[in-house]
């Protein structure tokens, strides 16, 4: 995980460095600074040091001082700005994951158990269609329904809990579609196994087979999928934040790109990547809770 974070930070750092223009001229150029002032500022910012040295000092500041540099446009520390925006994005991501699991898993199990009936075709078909709807189009359709026709929900910014509903559905619904399709295929896969036939032969009821045997074994695959789709979810949150005018990480990075605010872009993407790496780590840890085989393997060695 740590090499990945260093790798990502370095990659982003190098990419941003390719952008023509030094911080001095971006900061002072428009305000009519002289070349001398620009050079002086570059010197103060440490821009004239070699790339690797700058990267090392960036990483040092980030890890030991929680310092991600200063925004060119607002002059505020990037770390502080991110700290105020990150909770919104994380709340939204968390709500969307819950929403997608609540919708996707039961429907996925249902469509696997009732394979090739209407109860299978309708959810699977909707999931297929949803996978081709970009988040912003889905968001626009929801806005039309809930804000314009029903006049129930606000369409802009975050004011109270109701503001979270539409963004949550916008990000969560396509995700629920993936969850559903994946849950269905893992359940079908598990239901075909020999031990399921054994359980049935020994007289286990349909409910027992589904809940105690099939689902528990399919859960491992489902958790992996949920963790991996987190990247997709963060991606979806970028467009959703822009659409609903939410002041989260996504809109922060977009604004940074448009204003050529390089510390903002670097800091934002690095924080996103760390978040993603953490989620993958959590997924790995959660295997132990779900799968007694893995738990036994590690506790056995510990004793």
């Amino acid at each position, binding site marked *: 995980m740590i090499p990945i974070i260093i790798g990502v930070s370095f990659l982003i750092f190098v990419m941003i460095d390719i952008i023509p223009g030094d911080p001095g001229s971006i900061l002072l150029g428009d305000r009519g600074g002289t070349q001398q002032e620009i050079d002086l500022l570059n010197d103060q910012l440490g821009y004239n040091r070699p790339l690797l040295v700058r990267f090392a000092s960036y990483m040092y500041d980030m890890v030991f001082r929680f310092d991600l540099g200063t925004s060119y446009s607002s002059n505020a520390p990037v770390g502080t700005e991110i700290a105020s925006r990150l909770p919104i994005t994380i709340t939204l991501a968390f709500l969307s994951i819950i929403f997608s699991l609540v919708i996707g898993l039961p429907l996925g199990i249902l469509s696997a158990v009732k394979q090739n009936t209407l109860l299978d075709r309708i959810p699977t078909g909707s999931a297929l269609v949803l996978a081709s709807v970009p988040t912003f189009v889905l968001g626009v359709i929801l806005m*039309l329904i809930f804000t314009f026709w029903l006049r129930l929900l606000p369409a802009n910014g975050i004011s109270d809990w109701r503001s979270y509903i539409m963004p949550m559905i916008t990000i969560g619904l396509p995700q629920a579609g993936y969850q559903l399709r994946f849950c269905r295929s893992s359940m079908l896969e598990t239901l075909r196994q020999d031990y399921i036939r054994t359980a049935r032969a020994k007289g286990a009821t349909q409910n027992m087979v589904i809940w105690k045997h099939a689902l528990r074994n399919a859960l491992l695959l489902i958790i992996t999928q949920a963790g991996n789709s987190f*990247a997709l979810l963060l991606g979806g949150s970028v467009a959703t934040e822009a659409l609903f005018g939410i002041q989260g990480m996504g809109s922060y990075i977009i604004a940074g790109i448009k204003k050529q605010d390089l510390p903002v872009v670097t800091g934002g993407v690095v924080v996103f990547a760390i978040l993603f*790496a953490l989620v993958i780590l959590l997924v790995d840890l959660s295997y132990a809770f779900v799968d007694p085989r893995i738990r036994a393997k590690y506790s056995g060695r510990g004793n």
Partner: protein
Amino acid sequence: MKEKYVNISSLESSLVFKKESQLKETWRRLKKDKLAIFGLLSILTLILLAIVADFIASYDSALEMDLSHRLAAPSLEHIFGCDGYGRDLFARCLHGARISLFIGFFSGFSTCIIGSLLGAMVGYIGGKFDAIVMRILDVFSSIPSILFAMVWVAVLGSSTLNICFAIIITAIPAFVRLVRSSVLGIVEMEYIEACRAGGTPMFRILVKHVIPNTIGTIIVQLTADISSQILIAATLSFLGLGINPPQPEWGAMVSEGKEFLFQAAHLTLIPGLLICLAAFSMSVLGDGLRDALDPRLKA
């Protein structure tokens, strides 16, 4: 030596013959899949419309502003209505199709070519080369793709080709990983060893023997990629990072139309639905091809 070469080439021609029959077999199975045929027909229609766009409505008519028709509802004269500057939405959708589909297909095929070659090479060479390339790709793929593409557009500046480049480089890791894993079994086969012993250069082995044996996987991934790349391109231009404004592109049109969402919803919905249609067509075509190429996988 000469004789040996003849033998190998006759072997190749017999392979080509087998490939053709497999093609026919696949097509026979695909024809039965109504959803896949719908996808194929609708994507072909969209491509055809994009190609003949100039004959239906000139590019100028997609840019021409007529403020007297501002936000006009669909009518006989303007079948999709007019946008906030009074530009004909139908002409804009038509010319937008050119850019949206071009980005989707161009970056899809480029990802496919680079990804298959690199994936096959990594699987074929193995060892340290494999380990290093895969670690680098791990780093690339741990940044959410839309974010990574956004940063590339920021680095390169916004133009149609730069968006393609950003999308290609974002999509390559997954493609390489897929091809590598399906190639690993093939490179161990005896006929590959025979080629190597006969002195066939690596590139030729990869293109003639390794990649054709995994072509099914590659085609399915290609169609899925085109579908998702149409969505990513649309998202980028929706965010204002892709296309430069007067140029029509579906994602950018949704973003322009959004301002008038509650006055003239068709400005947002029509280009939005076109994006969905294009992505949906490619994705059902991909699913159909997957089942047709390997009926055992069908759930």
